[in-house]
């Protein structure tokens, strides 16, 4: 794994007047209840994790779980109360105002839930805004912004005002704006939550397409577990400021760390999340049929093929080497079996 782009070491964010004193006194053992009795609200409680270059970390949690606060600590829109945050090895909390502005102008982009477009600027002006703030002249910034307009598929609407656009279109502008300075790190704070389900799915696909092309390091905030599963390389599930579990989608679905996480995973259609690799038998019996499936396939895509086989199916890796096996019963068990047990 390459070097971590974002690295958090026991980050705390506590709101309230005596937050720092209280934190020092608590000595690393922060209890939300005692803090609340003293007029402090714990936003983020001991968050430690890394995000590698090109990785997409989705932070999932219900409202009030501190996910947005965590994001704002890492973008330093609020200052963390305790802990350390490193961006590409730089200590974020040590940066002075000028360095911070420099960092934001060149390395960071952010998309907001309510789009946060400037109402007095047209689409193209909104997108060109971060560039103009950087000091790029009007012509260059506008032409660069026009490229962005095309990238997010809004050509022809560049002279519209935000109020004249639909929600999905507005968020496209927000995305284009956050990408205009070609940042390495991309923060998205519930970008699709305010959109209709159909538009949301469309935007998610669009987002995956963009990420495929751009390979940014991403922190993505959402309250929608399905969205997290669909997009994430890894998911961090937050509750009351604490990261309950941080793992790949498959591992979270298969081994929920806490009761809270399990509740989310219960209703998840496993065949849509799990890969063959996650459910196969490590042993390779000799009695394999002719069919071979790749270990990276999602179960849903190959289930029909496997289920029509009578024999056990071999699982292969990228080099066509057989590394395991899977039989139809296993598939049926994965999809239907366990759920039955639960009921």
């Amino acid at each position, binding site marked *: 794994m390459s070097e971590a782009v974002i690295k958090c070491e026991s980050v705390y964010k506590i709101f309230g007047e005596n937050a720092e004193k209280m934190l020092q006194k608590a000595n690393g053992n922060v209890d939300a209840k005692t803090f609340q009795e003293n007029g402090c609200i714990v936003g983020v409680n001991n968050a430690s994790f890394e995000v590698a270059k090109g990785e997409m970390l989705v932070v999932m949690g219900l409202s009030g779980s501190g996910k947005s606060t965590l994001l*704002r600590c890492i*973008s330093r*829109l609020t200052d963390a109360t305790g802990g350390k945050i490193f961006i590409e090895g730089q200590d974020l909390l040590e940066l002075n*105002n000028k360095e911070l*502005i*420099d960092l*934001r*102008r*060149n390395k*960071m*982009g*952010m998309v*907001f*839930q*309510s*789009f*946060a*477009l*400037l*109402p*007095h*600027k*047209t689409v*193209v002006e909104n997108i060109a*805004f*971060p560039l103009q*703030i*950087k000091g790029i002249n*009007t012509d260059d910034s*506008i032409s660069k912004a026009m490229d962005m307009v095309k990238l997010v598929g809004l050509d022809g609407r*560049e*002279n519209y005002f935000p109020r004249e656009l639909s929600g999905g279109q507005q968020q496209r502008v*927000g995305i284009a*704006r*956050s990408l205009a*300075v070609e940042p390495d790190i991309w*923060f998205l704070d519930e970008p699709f939550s305010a959109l209709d389900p159909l538009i949301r799915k469309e935007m998610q696909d669009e987002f995956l397409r963009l990420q495929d092309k751009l390979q940014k390091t991403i922190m993505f905030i959402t309250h929608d577990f399905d969205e997290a599963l669909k997009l994430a390389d890894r998911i961090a599930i937050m509750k009351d400021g604490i990261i309950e579990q941080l793992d790949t989608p498959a591992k979270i679905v298969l081994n929920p760390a806490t009761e809270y996480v399990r509740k989310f995973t219960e209703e998840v259609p496993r065949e849509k999340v799990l890969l063959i690799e996650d459910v196969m038998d490590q042993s390779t019996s000799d009695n394999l049929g002719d069919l071979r499936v790749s270990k990276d396939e999602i179960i849903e895509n190959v289930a029909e093929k496997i289920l029509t086989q009578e024999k056990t199916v071999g699982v292969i890796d990228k080099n066509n080497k057989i590394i395991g096996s899977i039989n139809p019963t296993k598939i049926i068990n994965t999809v239907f079996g366990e759920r039955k047990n639960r009921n």
Partner: protein
Amino acid sequence: MEFLKKNPKIFQWLFLLIVFFALCFAIEVPETYKFIRGQAEFIKDPNQSTFVFAGKEVRYYAFDVFWRLPPLLGWLPIWINDSLFFLMNDWMPMEFWNEDTQEFKTRPLLLQISRNLTGFMTFIIELIREILLGGLETIVAFTSWDFIDANPWAELPGLPWTIVAAGATILSYKLSGKGLAIFAGLTMVYISIFGQWKPSMQTLSFILVAAPLSFIFGLGLGISAFKSKRVEKALYPILLVMQTMPQYAVLVPALVLFGVGDHAAVIITMIVAIPPMILLTLLGLRAIPPEVIEAGRMSGCNNWQLMFKVLIPTARRDILIGVNQVIMVCFSMAVISAFIGAKGLGFNLLLALNQLNIGLALEAGLCISLIAILLDKMSLAWANKQTDYFGNLSFFERNKNTIFFIGAFIIGIVLAYIGTFLFKDTFNYLFEIPHNKGISTADFWNKGVDWIFDTFFVYIKAFNTWLIQDVLQPMRALYLRMPAIATIVLVVGAGYLIGGIRSALVVCGLTLFIALSPWWDRALVTTYMATFGVIVSCLIGFTVGTLCFQSKSAAKFMLGVCDIFQTFPSFVYLIPVMMLFGITDTSVLIAVIVYATIPATRYTIEGLRSVPVSLHEAATMSGVNKFQRLTKIEFPLAFPHMMLGLNQTIVFALFMVIIGAFIGTEDLGQYILKALSDKNGAGIGLTLGICVAFIGLIFDNLIRTWVDKRKKHLGIA
């Protein structure tokens, strides 16, 4: 009884009213008490006593303190006056370099600051005025009178009116388009050919200094209040009082501080115009969604960029309303400050009103209103202007407005030059049409007024007499019959019932201030006139608003009408009523009613409009008819907003009642007007102003508290 048990509030209110009336009847009018028109409260009276309070001798009637409180605050105006004079003449003397005498001179600091400030203001006003009209002062400012004497050619020539008119038209076209351009052109031509050019340009130069300065200072203070809680807390009480402070009242202290003339007028206008600008800036900045601020930060804005590229443009809507307010106040003050020697249309208007020359007053008033509307629309267009990045324009297209203006400039000069040959014996009409040498419709209007008066005299007279004798006099008598204690109990009780102990204390403090001042009776008269005006205005406004709301286009039209009426300087309203009713209380009250109906109508329409569509639909599906929908759904929900309208209506009414003093009333306004010509009037004027402001604030506090509670209750906060 069952009913009362279910509604404890009603019971409380009833109880309060019973106490109030009981007090009213229980406390007899003392025999020595007289309310004599036009006379101060201190009538020579055998029972008059004095006592010493805080080192000052206070005189008061020896009659019952329950009837009228002793004027314990009588020392306040004198103290304010003394302090002002002390500050101006004796405080912190310092050595200052004097240019004229080439030596150091000892002067009090404040006097020096005031003189420098006024000097600076005078210079800018004169500069703009002389660009428009021509003159010597600007050149003198850089050189000396000797230089002018030696070089008779040294004089700013002033622009011919044709150029100014063309300039205004082209600018309007650039900002907005054809419609505004035509309006601008017509306005300028009208002003010119009706011989109002010179006073109009004088007024314009005054506005062009006062409005931008007010805007800049208001915006700046609004921003600093937004950024620092401490600044906001310091500004808040001043803003609150200034909101309801009549503009007259500020004139008097300004006289002491800044003397007489346009410069003092500009400064005083700024003092009046800045508070609403601050409030609206603050309001706008507060309403910005936090995510927009974060978006700005994440785009890498430094503080400066964040403020001017993100926050202020996002808060544009409210800030624009602020600009609109600033312009309104400036024009309103352009007239009022004629009292302290500002030149221009306002001066002519006052003069004409004084001479009862309604025709002339009407012309001047029309000019002011036209310019006010023009500037208002231009500022609005300027703020909404957007750039086109993709138009591939040629040099001519990009600069066509400049080119046209240069063309107009040259043509204008040529025309003016030709004019010198054409009009050898008379005035050069192509350069400037002198005052009162243009077409005048004054005679026409005057004849019209005379005709109306002759024809309808009987009816007007009858109406007038009826109103005064059967409505106004009894109402006034009732107000004056209220014992001070009863009034205070009523007001404080209302405060307690509406907003709890906190509201009660605030209201009590405000009322006590007025009750302890020497002008309680006058304040009652002011209140009675305002009450009458407000009641009628609300009846008209709520009815008209509700009727107009029934059709979308009518509502839009009515709001437009309100906009335009609001742009008229308040003084202008006096013209038509004086035409019809002469110098009576009826005139003032009708002006009050017309003026105060504007906010009543506007807020009714806006309130009804703000009722969510989903509720409309829900109501319709429940099978209500139009009338039921109005009474069951729309009124209850729109009521809080309509009450805010009532609040505005009261403020507007108070303003107009005070301005009505010009016609001749016998309330606080009359005393403010008197203070203007009093050498020691500053303190009196200011205290009177504060009294009026407090009357407004009492209602403001009660209504706002009620509205906030009600909105929370309805869940539309």
